[in-house]
């Protein structure tokens, strides 16, 4: 009978214990506000929010042991030399060389060549046609490997850490850890990731290879793959498949740390080469800081007519015509 008032009393006592006066509350709130404002007014020198400059090697890296120098792999794609292999009469040789070298299963393309219309706008085309500045219309080709972003959206969203950026600046995937959620594919603003939707065809040559994140073989079902920038080839002192496969030498591969890149034909100083040719990075405004640079063009330096549209369809490894392909000739 008399339990009711007891409960009420107890409750009130409990409440009183936790009571905070208005004055105390205001003090606490004021203190928090003052603290947060003090941080905001700190001089800029005390805060480290300066963006890193990609092209200047950092002091820390310069002082590192020169024998164990940390490479910073990068790529330059000179679109002035890229005619989408129209002059060869074949599909883009960078893509095919990559497909054959990495045993990329159909229909993946780790380096895919896209054809951009240079002027979308009808009115713009008319205006340019009237002027003398060539070209008034047409397309350009853009070979797109993985951009190897230094602020990689794919790495940021991966729930299990199956994709990460190595100290050499290459983003790799561990297919033994990947859970196949495809969040990275949704996050990649360049669409450079592919999924093995079914059981991928295993080439006989890859069957007994031990799996490594650097060559991603043998392929598995239900996980994500992408261009790995050929770190094993680089370590062996060779160019990636796409660079050596390009008949026009449009793809340079190099080291930002040493400031040198090569297309297999000539060696360039990266900083000078990029500045002199006003290089750009794909979707720079997104802040992903890619390691792949482009020099704008439409194959004009290998004599391509920009009005000549179209790419030949890409081929992949299959058992019948494995050794009858053009890319081998161009690598020799």
């Amino acid at each position, binding site marked *: 009978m008399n*339990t*009711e008032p007891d*409960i009420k009393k107890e409750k009130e006592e409990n409440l009183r214990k936790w009571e905070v006066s208005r004055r105390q509350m205001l003090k606490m709130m004021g203190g928090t506000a003052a603290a947060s404002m003090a941080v905001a007014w700190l001089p800029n020198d005390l805060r480290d929010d300066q963006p890193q400059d990609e092209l200047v090697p950092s002091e820390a890296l310069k002082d590192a042991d020169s024998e164990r120098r940390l490479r910073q792999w990068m790529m330059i794609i000179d679109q002035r030399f890229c005619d989408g292999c129209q002059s060869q009469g074949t599909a883009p040789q960078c893509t095919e060389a990559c497909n054959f070298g990495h045993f990329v299963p159909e*229909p*993946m393309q780790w380096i*895919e060549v*896209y*054809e*951009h*219309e240079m002027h979308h706008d009808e009115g713009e085309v008319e205006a340019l046609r009237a002027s003398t500045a060539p070209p008034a219309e047409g397309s350009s080709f853009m070979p*797109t490997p993985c951009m190897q972003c230094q602020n990689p*959206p794919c790495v*940021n*969203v*991966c*729930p*299990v*850490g*199956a994709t990460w950026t190595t100290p050499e600046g290459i983003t790799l995937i561990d297919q033994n*850890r*990947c*859970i*196949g*959620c*495809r*969040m990275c*594919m*949704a*996050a990649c*603003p*360049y*669409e450079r*990731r*592919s*999924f*093995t*939707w*079914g*059981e991928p065809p295993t080439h006989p040559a890859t069957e007994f290879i031990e799996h490594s994140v650097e060559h991603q073989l043998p392929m598995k*079902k*239900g*996980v994500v793959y992408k261009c790995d920038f050929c770190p094993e080839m680089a370590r062996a002192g060779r160019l990636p498949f796409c660079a050596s496969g390009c008949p026009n030498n449009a793809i340079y591969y190099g080291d930002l740390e040493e400031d040198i890149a090569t297309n297999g034909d000539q060696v360039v100083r990266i900083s000078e080469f990029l500045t002199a040719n006003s290089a750009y990075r794909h979707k720079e405004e*997104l802040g*992903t800081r890619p390691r792949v640079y482009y020099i704008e063009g439409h194959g004009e330096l290998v004599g391509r007519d920009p009005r000549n549209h179209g790419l030949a369809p890409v081929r992949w490894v299959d058992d019948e015509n494995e050794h009858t392909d053009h890319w081998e000739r161009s690598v020799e």
Partner: protein
Amino acid sequence: MTYSTESLQRHTIEAMQRFSRTYVIAFAILLTLVIIGAAAWIYQIREGLIVTGMRDRITWGLYITLFVFFIGASMGGTFVSAALRLADMGWRAPISRGAEYITVAALLTASLFIFADMGRPERALNIMLFGRWESPLVWDVYGLTTYLAGSMVYLYLAVLPDLALVRDAIGEKLDPVRRLFVVMFSASWTGHPRQERALHISLQVMTVVIVPVAVMMHTVTSWIFGMTLREPWDSPMFGIYFVVGAVYSGVGLIAVFMFVMRKLNRLEAYITDRHFQNMGTLLAGSGGVMVFFQISDLVTAGFKLKTGAAFNLYQLADGAMSPIFWTYIWLGLIVPLALMLNPWTRTVLGVLIAAVLANVGMMLERYFIVIGGLRVPLNPYEPPNYAPTVTELLIVLGLCSFFVLVIMIMMKLAPAISVQEMLETGELETVEKELSTAEGAAS
């Protein structure tokens, strides 16, 4: 007063014991669908996701769409049972039990949809082993497990006195499985004042905890999309946009559930037209906010017409997504809102129609957000298309049946209306008064 308490107990307990023909047939059909779905899922695991309509460009399809939808459904349950408890609204009492069932069942189903979508479901534990706190998906997984655990505790606390009621009333007469369940989970509840006080405090605490957890859960779900750089998704508004959509479809789902349960269990005396009218008001409110967010989203994107956003708007207005988009706008937003804002159509039937339309509409909206967002090309190529395959549809159908089945099983484990809450809120008296005035008017 005493008479109606007894009759309520009798009614709800009778409903628990009765396995009507409709119930048995529905149960059998749903179980068959679940088994077919499970078979389709095994086939999908063996062959890989190649058996779905998803490919490299459109990498998420119906599974993720329905995952988002079911998270939304759970949100409605929490809104009705916990948020209305916080606001001290008595009329929630006869609905809250069903709302809590929907929350738990919808969260279970949503988590299964994640598994269905994974390329490597057997590696799901990697999220716990190697989880990176930076990833929105990890927030989602931990949010979902927290929310599921929290809503189960909340449901259990609310159902505890009623389980004891069943144990005391018909404990001996129940079949052995349910007897074991009821005896085990009623946990020596006697209704002693100390027990009641402990329960009351725990329920208060859980109510305060579960509402922000629910809001957090849906915000985090929207961030799976909002944290990417894709044009229609890359919007700071996504969190609240998804939460409001979730409340809208969730409230609708509860109204549908109320209607079916009232019919099946003959509980017309306790779930009255007034309850439906109140649900209609909630539908109108959340639908109105949804319209506001829809307009904000379309107008801010449509004014600037950035490349990706422009593509998205054109595909919604008269492109590949237009049938879905306009069905959603008219049947999913405008018609339900018109029905619910007009007092003449805010009847039981009107609320049912509006609730079904709101749910269909929100499912379509989730579809064009997920697939429409992935359809926006990021490189120069022909925009890809997506169509679910038969396997995909069977799995989806199986999981939706699983959702209903879980609710149907829970319906037979405890009283469908919380007797405890009806007494505590005084709702029983209100209902009783309503009945007697109606009878008086009739005679």
